[in-house]
């Protein structure tokens, strides 16, 4: 492409007339921020929910339910919405997935339940299960401060490390069995990536915290923020003080590009950037580059790119080293990105960061091809994108530091089918174990299954 070849010859280090990289907030009017960060899928009204619930066929051995990692009885809850028993519908959801409210907002339903829906097969228009789930759970949470009741106290105490989806799900299930649970989290604010990672327009308002309160509302769960395993806590003391331990610590490391200049100003880790943005009181104050390049092809890359655009970045390009089909971001998410004005480029890998006066000014990519076995090789052909900000979203990794002697598998915590680690008193689940996709709903299921196993062990 001539355009790219031309770009390569441009001395972008100091574009004429610009003084250094352009990274700042207040690119937009206040109203634009409000609009850009409003609900991506506005909730269904009562009429819409009834019309949509009518579309469900109440399938036998429903494919949607099989496709749901938490196995929510979808036909049953939808039928309950249709008959006006909306709280009953929510109960069906919460029994299988206590974070049903968040999952209704963030699940990639297009690759899970809605992909499996028979009406998707029949007419390319699945029942909108996610929105119906949100309708039911919102309704319930407006009228109730918690879900479920606790069985008689067992006197057993369980430590849960990590207040993300895995830890919260595990804690709720254990509390309802009558055990006392203490959740420790390194951060001050609970919720894990629900609070710090999920795109702002998926869980608007303070939903993550409302949901945490709702979950803790069952009682018997104590939350201790600012307590990190490896810093303030050790596995040995936890296993000594508690009857069982659950680890739901997620992924803390981020993969590096391995290029020189990675420490330059303007080169940021997408997860950290999103976290800062999520915590910003006023989105207008979040600095964002005028031209942003996001490297990666997953959900994090899409979220970073889309939110950069929503903050007013003029040009946002997402660059992925393979083709679109290989991206972790679903077709739907790619469409969300394109609709937000993000340019997606594929088959190119980062080759060189351009830095001037300690700040990034651009990044060069090498074009790639895959061979018959799917192996990636560079073609040697390069192009360069000018950038005020480069966001790295090429994957997170598990940091095994504080684990002691607990065994690993594929760089994460090894667990058996019941989510027990190699230490008989320790269970683990969520992103920090190698099972399943790194999704909120998968973490919830892990926590739930681990709780079942812990409960059985404590009662044995």
């Amino acid at each position: 492409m001539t355009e790219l070849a031309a770009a390569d010859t441009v001395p972008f280090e100091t574009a004429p007339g610009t003084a250094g990289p352009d990274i700042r907030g207040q690119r937009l009017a206040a109203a634009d921020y409000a609009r850009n960060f409003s609900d991506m899928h506005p909730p269904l009204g009562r009429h819409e929910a009834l019309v949509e619930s009518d579309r469900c066929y109440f399938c036998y051995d429903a494919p949607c339910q099989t496709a749901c990692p938490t196995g929510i009885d979808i036909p049953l809850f939808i039928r309950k919405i249709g008959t006006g028993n909306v709280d009953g519908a929510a109960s069906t959801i919460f029994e299988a997935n206590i974070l049903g409210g968040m999952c209704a907002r963030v699940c990639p339903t297009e690759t899970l339940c809605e992909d499996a829906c028979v009406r998707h097969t029949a007419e390319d228009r699945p029942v909108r299960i996610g929105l119906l789930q949100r309708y039911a759970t919102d309704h319930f949470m407006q009228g109730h401060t918690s879900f479920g009741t606790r069985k008689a106290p067992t006197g057993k105490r369980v430590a849960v490390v990590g207040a993300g989806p895995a830890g919260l799900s595990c804690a709720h299930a254990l509390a309802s069995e009558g055990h006392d649970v203490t959740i420790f989290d390194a951060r001050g604010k609970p919720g894990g990536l629900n609070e710090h990672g999920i795109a702002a327009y998926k869980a608007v308002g303070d939903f993550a915290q409302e949901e945490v309160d709702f979950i803790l509302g069952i009682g018997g769960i104590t939350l201790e923020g600012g307590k990190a395993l490896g810093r303030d806590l050790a596995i040995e003391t936890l296993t000594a003080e508690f009857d069982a331990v659950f680890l739901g610590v997620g992924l803390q490391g981020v993969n590096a590009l391995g290029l020189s200049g990675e420490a330059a100003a303007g080169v940021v880790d997408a997860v950290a950037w999103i976290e800062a943005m999520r915590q910003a009181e006023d989105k207008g104050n979040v600095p964002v580059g005028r031209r942003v390049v996001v490297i990666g092809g997953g959900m994090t890359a899409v979220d970073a790119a889309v939110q950069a655009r929503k903050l007013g970045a003029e040009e946002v390009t997402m660059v992925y080293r393979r083709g679109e089909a290989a991206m972790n971001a679903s077709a739907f998410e790619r469409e969300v990105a394109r609709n937000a004005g993000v340019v997606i480029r594929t088959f190119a890998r980062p080759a060189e960061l351009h830095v001037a006066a300690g700040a990034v000014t651009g990044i060069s990519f090498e074009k790639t091809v895959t061979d018959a076995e799917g192996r990636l090789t560079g073609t040697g052909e390069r192009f360069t994108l000018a950038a005020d900000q480069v966001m790295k979203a090429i994957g997170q990794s598990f940091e095994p530091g504080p684990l002691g002697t607990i065994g690993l598998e594929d760089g994460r915590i090894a667990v058996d089918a019941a989510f027990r680690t190699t230490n008989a008193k320790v269970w683990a689940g969520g992103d920090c174990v190698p099972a399943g996709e790194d999704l909120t709903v998968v973490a919830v299921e892990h926590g739930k299954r681990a709780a079942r196993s812990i409960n059985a062990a404590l009662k044995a």
Partner: protein
Amino acid sequence: MADLSTNFLGIRSPNPFWLASAPPTDKQYNVERAFRAGWGGVVWKTLGEDGPPVVNVNGPRYGAIHGADRRLLGLNNIELITDRPLEVNLREIAEVKKNWPDRAMIVSIMVPCEEQAWKAILPLVEATGADGIELNFGCPHGMSERGMGSAVGQVPEYIEMVARWCKQTTRMPVIVKLTPNITDIRYPARAAKKGGADAVSLINTISSIISVDLDSFSPTPSIDGRGSHGGYCGPAVKPIALNMVAEIARDAETRGLPISGIGGITTWRDAAEYIALGCGTVQVCTAAMTYGFKIVQEMIDGLSAYMDEKGFRTIEDFRGRAVPNVTDWQYLNLNYIAKARIDQDACIKCGRCHIACEDTSHQAITSMVDGKRHFEVIDAECVGCNLCVSVCPVENCITMEEMVAGTDPRTGRPVSPDYANWTTHPNNPMARVAAE
């Protein structure tokens, strides 16, 4: 182009679609709008005797049951006959007939069961130029408590008597409208014929309580906390009405008696089914009350296209064609064997056929084959009951296929090409007695 025009008892109309006696035909304004939309005729909203008119409730009169997407399937009403003064109705009837001479104008009447009452009103109606009268012996609420409507329609002797009075008093053709709130519809139909009625029309509404309000514990529609039974109509009543029409059409005593079919007619198909069972015209109320008068345009066009496709030039070409095929259960061919067949390309794998058959019938549909979700009929178990066809959400995905030869894997018996029914079946005690 098919000719849809009808001649029913000498009353001509450009098509068989009449509006039934009900709110859509209560006044000139509505009826002229209906004629403009294309309706072939109307049965004017039932007139009562001269004097202060009846009064209706001033609260809700209707209740409904809905299918998916709030599609109205059944309507219930507690409305009475016209609540407008007799002379206003008569004046408007005359006016409309003058303005629309090619449309059928039937006037529905309900007066007390006394000869004088009928003799008084008939000349007034005749003077309007109306084409015929319909005797409302059907209304199941309000009027029946005053000894009219279905209170008369439930006593065949009264029907016969009133029909006779009317035939003696007027030149106009007399249609008797029958109530379905009776055990055997053939008795009132026979009585109408005996009394000299020219035709019957059916059905009127079915006595019903449409629902109970679970907060106030009042039946609905609720008038100040209390409810009363009403009359049920709309798509849900069509099967009941079709059976009653067929009973009259094939009864030895009433065979050939002209019938105007009513009950749940919503599309041209519904109308065609009534005609196939012998009806010379059809009447519509709920469908018009649900969608407005324009629906007749679909009915006209659909019926016309169907007739063209089948090569029927006039309504008479297919009227009554289904009547000879209505028979008693005991004459059905027990040697006819059918098995369900699932079109795997059309199947969306919802599993409803499986669970219906598995839980409630004959365990004849798989859910898993070689570890894969797969729905297939097991011929050795399938009794051919048609339940799966009824519950499958995809039209024509499951069909019933006749076994024409071979052995039925369920019974192990060869398929017989002969006709054999219950009357001669070895398990029939009566047949055994006859054989002995």
